[in-house]
């Protein structure tokens, strides 16, 4: 309604200005027309009340009706002022203009009033003073025509005013509704803000307590319905966190205990693994040494085998040598026999030479002194023959002894050959055994190589295990420290399970 009133107030101001202008025109016309100052007096009188009301800032229905009557009366005054002049027909247009200007107030009642006043004025003037409205005397038909025009204009203006007023009212209602909605929305926002502040304050207090580690707090006071879910969610979250941290605390304790046990076990395992690694290293070294020894033994067995083979070969060669020795002995025996025969021959020869020398000596002795030298030679030959016989006899004896010894040697060589054959057989057996030993030693070396490789792998794995045990030990120590840190960390929280009787500042979980 304020908008419509403002429009009407503006229309009143416009019409007041128009009235002032019309009074001014009428005032000017006072000097020009023959009707004197009465029209000006009438114009001032008819415009005084509406102008005063407008100057008071009023725009009520009475003011509008007063202004409508004044606007409708001014053309009458103007028409009266210029009655009898040629401007009368033209002045009639001011009636329509005035009627139309009343639409500025967006009120159909002043329009109806002005139209009625105009109709009354014209009807009365048609009978009482037709000269002020018509030229040529009374004409009721013209009155009807003018009335029809005025009615048409009035109807259009009424419709226009009503539509404008309704539109303005509608807009004002819409604006008022919008303002009401805005006010309600503002109230809702204010209420929501207050509720939010209360909710935020309550949640903030709990969150601050929660930040201090107090997880036993709950929001007990009810929230507005829109935030009740938030309170329930907060309490559920706090309870979940409370329970979770309770379980974490228990788990931290168990982890700490388990970590301590793991650390002890890991230490023991590290020590045992270290000892195992040392033992495996010693075993590996022993195995390596054993393999080396066996390998050397195998090499020696091979060497012995080779030596045995050489000995076998030498024995075989010895057998052959023995055979040849036997043959040589036999040949020596034969030669000895032949030598004995030759020695016998030589002995015979020496005997005969002795006989001859003896004969020669006898003969030389008989020949006297001329043959004395000869006799000496014969003696010497005889001595030589005797020594030859003696030597032959010695040789014969020696040869006999040699033959006997050769025979003995042949027998011994035969026995030696037999022994050598036995030795060759034995050496062959020994070679076979040594070959078997060498082969077995090679197999043992190979097996020991595998064992050594296994020990190496075991040692490597053990070393890796030792390293892993070392890492596990370090991890166990770290886990224990972390568990202790976790335990210390969660120990700062005050949980509902640890809640003790007291005077809580805020509500606690049941």
């Amino acid at each position, binding site marked *: 309604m304020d908008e419509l009133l403002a429009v009407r107030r503006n229309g009143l101001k416009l019409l007041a200005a128009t009235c002032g202008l019309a009074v001014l025109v009428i005032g000017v016309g006072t000097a020009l027309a*023959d009707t004197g100052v009465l029209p000006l007096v009438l114009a001032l009188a008819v415009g005084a009340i509406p102008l005063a009301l407008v100057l008071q800032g009023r725009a009520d229905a009475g003011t509008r009706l007063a202004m409508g009557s004044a606007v409708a009366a001014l053309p009458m005054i103007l028409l009266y002022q210029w009655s009898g002049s040629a401007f009368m027909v033209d002045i009639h247009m001011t009636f329509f203009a005035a009627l139309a200007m009343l639409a500025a107030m967006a009120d159909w009642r002043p329009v109806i009033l002005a139209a009625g006043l105009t109709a009354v004025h014209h009807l009365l003037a048609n009978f009482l003073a037709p000269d002020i409205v018509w030229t040529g005397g009374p004409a009721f038909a013209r009155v009807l025509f003018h009335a029809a025009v005025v009615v048409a204009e009035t109807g259009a203006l009424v419709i226009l005013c009503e539509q404008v007023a309704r539109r303005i009212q509608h807009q004002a209602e819409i604006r008022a509704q919008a303002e009401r909605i805005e006010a309600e929305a503002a109230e809702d926002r204010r209420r929501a803000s207050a509720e939010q502040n209360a909710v935020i304050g309550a949640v903030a207090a709990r969150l601050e307590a929660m930040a201090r580690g107090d997880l036993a707090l709950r929001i007990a006071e009810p929230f507005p319905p829109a935030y009740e879910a938030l309170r329930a969610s907060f309490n559920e979250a706090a309870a979940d966190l409370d329970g979770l941290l309770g379980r974490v605390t228990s788990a931290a304790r168990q982890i700490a205990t388990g970590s301590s046990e793991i650390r002890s076990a890991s230490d023991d395992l590290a020590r045992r693994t270290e000892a195992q690694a040392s033992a495996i290293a010693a075993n590996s070294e022993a195995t390596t040494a054993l393999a080396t020894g066996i390998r050397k033994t195998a090499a020696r067995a091979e060497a012995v085998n080779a030596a045995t083979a050489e000995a076998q070969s030498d024995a075989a060669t010895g057998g052959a040598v023995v055979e040849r020795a036997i043959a040589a002995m036999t040949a020596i025996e034969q030669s000895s026999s032949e030598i004995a025969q030759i020695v016998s021959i030589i002995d015979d020869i020496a005997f005969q030479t002795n006989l001859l020398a003896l004969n020669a000596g006898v003969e030389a002795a008989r020949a006297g002194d001329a043959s004395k030298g000869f006799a000496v030679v014969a003696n010497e030959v005889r001595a030589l023959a005797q020594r030859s016989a003696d030597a032959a006899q010695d040789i014969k004896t020696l040869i006999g002894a040699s033959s006997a010894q050769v025979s003995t040697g042949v027998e011994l060589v035969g026995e030696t050959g037999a022994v050598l054959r036995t030795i060759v057989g034995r050496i062959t057996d020994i070679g076979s055994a040594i070959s078997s030993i060498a082969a077995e030693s090679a197999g043992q070396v190979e097996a020991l190589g595998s064992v050594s490789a296994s020990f190496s792998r075991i040692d490597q794995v053990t070393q890796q295990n030792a390293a892993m045990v070392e890492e596990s030990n370090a991890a166990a120590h770290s886990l224990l420290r972390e568990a202790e840190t976790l335990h210390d960390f969660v120990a700062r929280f005050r949980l509902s399970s640890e809640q003790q009787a007291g005077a809580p500042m805020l509500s606690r979980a049941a």
Partner: protein
Amino acid sequence: MPATTPPQTSPRLALAAQCAVLALVVAVAELAPRPGLAALYVPILPVQRHAALDWALAHSAALGGKGPLGGMILTAPPPGLGMQALREGALALAIPAFLCQSPKARPNG
């Protein structure tokens, strides 16, 4: 001659005063003497001397006889007769043409 409404006058009183002014305006516009029309001079207050009537007669008006309900009929009333008559306590009313039998009466316009 109505007075202007004082400030803070009630709307009803102001509207009533405006109605009175309107009635006066319509009446004056319809009945005020105009040049070329005969006028009826009607004394309202008892006066000893009708200066306005003398003034009109001195300004080319002529007596046309007595009115049917009293007063004097003036032909060719001069401009300003209405105000002069009001000052003398009388009314000067224009006589409609159809009530006027004077051959001098002529339509204006």
